[in-house]
């Protein structure tokens, strides 16, 4: 029997989508294999510890012997601990000084560096370089420069006829010196973020404002600054969170001293948990800090949302 010629059909995927669906179903296994390392690490060393910390904060624990349930005692003790309230005050003062100053210097420098002048690249590099140094390196370097006896700073002051300063060993100066060191290393971050944002200010908007007769000051006030608002909000949040969590620099330079004048919250937590063997107490302080950070983030987000509404209202 002669074979019938086979009808010419394209052997494409059949209209029935079952194979694709099967392929998708088989994919669940692959997907879980892909995400499992990340899920294991992130959840295991983040979600679980968050709950663990909460439980720990209701216990008296030295991390070695079995711990004892004490309810809210840790939090009650925290509220009355003068060392903790001093740490809170120090941290707030540090933040309140550092955040606005770093933003202000950052914005001013970015506006200047946004001009077409020679060597701008070099200036930007020099201003940014300190940012990549570790807090340890900064701390060790400035401990040396500001050393009351052997430091270059007092050497220069001596030559200028100014009396020697205590700097990091003077309780009334230490925290301000720490702010200055962080400004030295952290301003560059604000500069590059603002510079990147300035690139995004629409050129057409500037041209239009110029045509309408806007001077430089008007351009800055009514065109440039408003378009930078989202970046400013981000920077406020970012810098505030960074400075509320400052630790490394304090550990390297002053270890919280002199006379507790630079004890910040994280230093207090570290000391309680890993030096004084009162981990439960440290955990309760960590929870207070975490709640404060969440409040800052929430407040900033609220401001941002309100700002956006106002902008949209103005546009319509």
């Amino acid at each position, binding site marked *: 029997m002669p074979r019938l010629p086979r009808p010419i059909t394209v052997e494409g*995927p059949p209209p029935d989508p079952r194979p694709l669906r099967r392929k998708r179903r088989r*994919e669940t296994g692959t*997907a*879980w294999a*892909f*995400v499992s*390392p*990340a*899920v294991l*690490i*992130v*959840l295991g*060393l*983040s*979600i679980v*510890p*968050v709950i663990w910390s909460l439980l720990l904060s209701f216990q008296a624990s030295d*991390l070695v012997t079995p711990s004892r349930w004490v309810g809210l005692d840790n939090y009650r003790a925290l509220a009355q601990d003068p060392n903790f309230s001093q740490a809170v005050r120090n941290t707030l003062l540090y933040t309140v000084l550092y955040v606005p100053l770093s933003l202000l210097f950052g914005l001013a420098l970015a506006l*200047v*560096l946004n001009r077409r002048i*020679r060597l701008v690249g*070099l200036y930007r*590099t*020099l201003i*940014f*370089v*300190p940012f*990549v*140094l*570790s*807090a*340890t*390196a900064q701390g*060790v*370097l*400035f401990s*040396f*420069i500001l050393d009351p*006896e052997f*430091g*270059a700073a*007092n*050497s220069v002051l001596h*030559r200028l006829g100014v009396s020697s300063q205590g700097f990091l060993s003077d309780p009334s100066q230490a925290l301000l010196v720490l702010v200055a060191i962080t400004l*030295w290393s952290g301003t560059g971050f604000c500069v*590059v*973020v603002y*510079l990147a944002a300035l690139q995004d200010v629409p050129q057409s908007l500037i041209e239009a404002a110029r045509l309408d007769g806007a001077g430089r000051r008007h351009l800055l006030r009514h065109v440039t600054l408003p378009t930078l608002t989202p970046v400013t909000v981000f920077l406020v949040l*970012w810098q505030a*969170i960074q400075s509320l*969590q400052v630790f*490394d620099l304090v*550990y*390297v330079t002053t270890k919280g001293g002199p006379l507790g004048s630079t004890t910040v919250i994280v230093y207090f937590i570290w000391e309680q948990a*890993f030096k004084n063997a009162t981990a439960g107490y440290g*955990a309760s302080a*960590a929870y207070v*800090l*975490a709640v404060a950070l*969440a409040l800052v983030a929430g407040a900033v987000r609220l401001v941002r949302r309100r700002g956006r509404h106002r902008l949209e209202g103005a546009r319509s």
Partner: protein
Amino acid sequence: MTATSARPGTADPVRGVLDPPAAVERRRPRLPFSPWHLLLAPLALVFAVPLVWLVLSSVMTNAEINRFPPALWPSGIDLGGYRYVLGNAMFPRWFANSLIVSAVTVAANLVFGSLAGYAFARMRFAGSRVLLGLMLATMAVPFQLTMIPTFLVMKKLGLIDTLGALIVPSLVTPFAVFLLRQFFLSLPRELEEAAWIDGCSRLRVLWRIVLPLSRPALATVAVLTFLTTWNDLTWPLIAINHDTQYTLQLGLTTFQGQHHTQWAAVMAGNVITVLPVLLAFLGAQKTFIQSITSSGLKG
């Protein structure tokens, strides 16, 4: 028309309105350079001088540093500090430790971050939304909240006082997963779908098609992971006690505490600690700055 407006001397009212700054500049008395340099040069100096001092003091003799008032400029290049730090102290060991921890952490973040980021970007699976939400939420958890239990976990695993304790908690960060996921989402889908339907495995698609297109995002993850790992002090301080397992940061601060008067050696150690980061930054400045700003602006 173009020729008319370009001809010099032609009265062109439109040009006049468009270019007021040029007219103003012509009247100004001319400096051989922009007046902004008068402000910028001293400012840049303020940022540069401490770093210059770091290098200068590392090649001074202790006698030069310890007299009062101390010398501001070395009389010659004295490598005594470096010799001490590289010979007697454990800096070479600490350098190697830092290098191992940073290299493994960066590599692990690239691998696991890509895998998870890709799954979250392109694959639909049960629980993906919840997991992604949880991952995002953990980005907001401050480290101080997790450090005590993480210490206890590492102790249970027997990793305290080993480099493992430094590596395991940061094998993959939610930041890496999220950043790579966002980048993968921005890539055109068609290429991958075609290869996938042709029978390529997801892993092959990721390796052959997606990752070669994702170099900028991978560079960002690598740069930021390296920077935070190399520079970290808090976690090594908690997890490491024995000086053979120190990282450079921990070693440097301990060394400073023990050699308080040997500033030349301390500064030599400090130069060694910052050199890798500085060289990496100067070598790939554009990538560094882009990574740091882009991660910032997206946040």
